[in-house]
């Protein structure tokens, strides 16, 4: 091949590559302007749409599923895929009666046998089977009736059954290995998955057999994954994205000035807290823990780091969680409203005094100096800086260490941390047991208190809701007094929308109420 032919050959290859790239793909992430198509912009793609294999749930995979029970707008648990249920005897057995008109996206009925198979897959292969409790057996009583028997009573089941983790999925679409759901998913939720563009978008259509309370108000929904904040905002401002989830706080004011944009605020169910490893000697004295609580000014953190888009929380549970008590919240607020002098006094009583006039308190020749772990979220880092300043006012020296979330998740159960800024979100007070303060379950706080263990264990098997609430109130009262962590705030989930006749977000679970969504004509 002479040189000229060689150059022509390379040029031809380059040209062909460019031409091949010129074809606009039908399902690309770029909006083509279909009037009845909704484009939702969000930060990241869920790990999987298979709810039995991922804890990463969000707007992009939740609508695939319909749940056995649901929470109404006031937080009450009401039937959804079931018509009713009956608790038998001591509560270890519950009979559920299913609606007879629910259908999976594959066209198969959501009957007792299908629900049983879904639960069996959950129990045998899902790492999230603890959400269903320790199930002994599931018995099909008739086409649309089944009985679950637990080894022990499991009171949180009913609220857990309002989350997608326990939603029935259609196991008939799985391959021989019991996998492949992510390529051929079938739930019974309002949206049916049409196309997966890995890394780019998930495309859904309204599922015709779902109860839409009339006709669906749109033809399709595309969830676009746009990780960069600025790019996401520009796409929304340009009109290519119609629903912008988790609007960064610094852009809210700007978006509110646009008359075509509506901002929706819903209080999140995720509580941010300042915690610490309670096994560390420095945090053993309750007076030290209470002093930290008294030194924290939540409003200042909220205003300086979240543009005021959050609600201060003083008690261990936020308002949207079952087990929340107004009495506890008031009690905690009265006890721990910021009081620097009282905090210093408590520290002094615990033996921590400023001796060498550098502003840092000391005890037995040792400075009060701790390392605060925070993830790489910019708002959390700013909050950590405010906390650092507030604690310095009572003589506590805080060093901030920014760590990847994956590192914090792995290291904190091992007790490698001293202090951390973290959060939790779960709709039931059992979170106090399985995540925060249960025996051998206190993953990040490492708090040990036999009395609290006992109350939380009792609450987990108490089937009467009133009695259960009372037990959680008792536990929370002790937690407020003991101050093993400091609840800080729940953020507002801010969503920006444009061109909708109606659009509602559930006030408790923060998900889009798809039957209410209607695009403007």
């Amino acid at each position, binding site marked *: 091949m002479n040189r000229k032919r*060689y150059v022509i050959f390379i040029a031809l290859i*380059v040209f062909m*590559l*460019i*031409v091949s*790239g*010129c*074809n*606009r*793909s039908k399902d*690309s*992430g*770029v909006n083509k302007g279909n009037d009845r198509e909704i484009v939702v912009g969000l930060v*990241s*793609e869920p*790990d*999987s749409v*298979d709810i039995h*294999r*991922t*804890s*990463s749930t969000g707007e992009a995979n939740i609508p695939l599923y319909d749940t056995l029970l649901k929470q109404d707008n006031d937080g009450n648990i009401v039937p959804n895929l079931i018509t009713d249920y009956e608790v038998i005897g001591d509560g270890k057995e519950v009979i559920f009666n299913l609606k007879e008109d629910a259908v999976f996206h594959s066209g198969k009925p959501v009957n007792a046998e299908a629900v049983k198979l879904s639960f069996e897959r959950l129990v045998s292969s899902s*790492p*999230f*089977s*603890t*959400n269903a409790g320790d199930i002994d057996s599931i018995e099909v009583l008739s086409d649309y009736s089944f009985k679950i028997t637990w080894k022990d009573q499991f009171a949180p089941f009913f609220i857990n059954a309002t989350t997608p983790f326990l939603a029935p999925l259609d196991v008939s679409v799985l391959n021989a290995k019991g*996998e*492949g*759901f*992510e390529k051929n998913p079938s739930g019974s939720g309002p949206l049916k998955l049409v196309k997966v*563009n*890995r*890394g*780019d978008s998930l495309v859904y259509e309204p599922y015709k057999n779902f109860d839409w309370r009339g006709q669906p108000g749109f033809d399709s929904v595309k969830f*676009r994954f*746009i*990780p*960069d904040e*600025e*790019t996401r905002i*520009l796409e929304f*401002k*340009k009109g*290519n994205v119609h629903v912008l989830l988790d609007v960064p706080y610094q852009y809210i004011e700007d978006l509110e000035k646009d008359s075509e944009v509506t901002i929706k605020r819903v209080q999140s169910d995720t509580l941010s807290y300042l915690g610490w490893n309670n096994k560390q000697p420095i945090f053993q004295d309750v007076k030290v823990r209470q002093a930290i609580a008294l030194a924290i000014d939540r409003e200042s953190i909220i205003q300086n780091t979240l543009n005021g888009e959050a609600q201060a929380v003083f008690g261990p549970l936020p308002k949207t969680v079952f087990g929340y008590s107004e009495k506890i919240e008031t009690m905690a607020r009265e006890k721990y409203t910021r009081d620097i002098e009282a905090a210093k006094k408590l520290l002094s009583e615990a033996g921590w005094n400023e001796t060498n006039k550098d502003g840092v308190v000391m005890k037995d020749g040792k400075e009060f100096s701790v390392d605060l772990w925070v993830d790489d979220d910019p708002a959390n880092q700013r909050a950590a800086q405010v906390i650092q300043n507030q604690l310095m006012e009572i003589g506590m020296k805080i060093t901030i260490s920014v760590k*990847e*979330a*994956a*590192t914090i*998740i*792995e*290291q904190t*159960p091992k007790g490698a941390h001293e202090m951390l800024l973290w959060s*939790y979100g*779960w709709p039931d007070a059992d*979170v106090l047991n*399985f*995540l925060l303060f249960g025996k051998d*379950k206190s*993953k990040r706080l490492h708090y040990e208190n036999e009395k609290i263990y006992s109350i939380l264990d009792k609450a987990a098997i108490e089937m009467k809701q009133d009695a259960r609430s009372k037990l959680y109130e008792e536990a929370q009262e002790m937690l407020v007094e003991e101050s093993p962590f400091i609840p800080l705030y729940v953020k507002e989930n801010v969503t920006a929308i444009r061109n909708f006749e109606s659009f509602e977000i559930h006030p408790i679970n923060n998900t889009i109420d798809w039957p209410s969504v209607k695009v403007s004509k």
Partner: protein
Amino acid sequence: MSSYLFKRIFTMIITIFGVSVLVFIIIHLIPGNPVNHILGDFATEESIKELEMRLGLDRPILVQYFSYMFQAFQGDLGTSYITGYTVVEEILNRIPITAQLALYSIIFGSITGIIIGVIAAVKKNTIYDQLAMVLALIGISAPGFWIALFLILLFSYQLNIFPISGYDGFYSLILPSITLGLGTAGSIARMTRSSMLDVIKQDYIRTARAKGAGTYRLIFRHSLQNAIIPVVTLIGMQFGYLMAGAVVTETVFALPGLGSLIVSAISTRDIPTVQGLLLFMAAMIIIVNFVIDLLYTKLDPRIQYE
């Protein structure tokens, strides 16, 4: 030539093997593991152990490594712990976008860089030279995310010429390619200038000029052709930088390529995906540089591989 080829291919295999060992060690040294990511707040001691067993993470490290490499040599890079997709599937899904992005960036960077470099060399010590070198410096030093946002604001948001983000064929890759190619252009411009200046001083250029060769022929036929070898070497080396730069560019432009995949895989500690992707990228860089070495013989017949 054949013994050279044999030696190079052998070296390439050893290099890829070395990369695989390094990647494996690093991914196991950094804190955080996929089991904790998958289980999230629902992790219990039993569920962690059970999932580790299911994913094969409870086996000794050496067993995990050799089992991985054994499968890799058969073309199986494993299955993502997080998504359930095979790593080969993920790479095949996303490689077209990253490959196009790298290709267009190289084309843009090379053409722009060579033109700027030639102008700077020919107009040495004039305002054109200084301007060209300032442009090259900006290309090298301006952060990719800043250039990307600037281009988006100007050409997509204000002038409405290109899409803001997402993949939609060649058109949607123009701004990302410019973003990624600017750094390459800067480096190539500086290399072209210095290489051209060396060549221009040579006796044969003076001879050609004395024989009446025109400016165009003098620059492109006699000077640039002799100055191009170090530039081509640099283009090969830039391929590695482009792969790294693609991580930022793909994130800002929301392009579903290999760069954005590796970011999410690292944050979720998805070991098979990270390993597979890094091995693949390393292999690509090694192969591209190998091809460029072979190109030398075509560009300069004096170069012979014995």
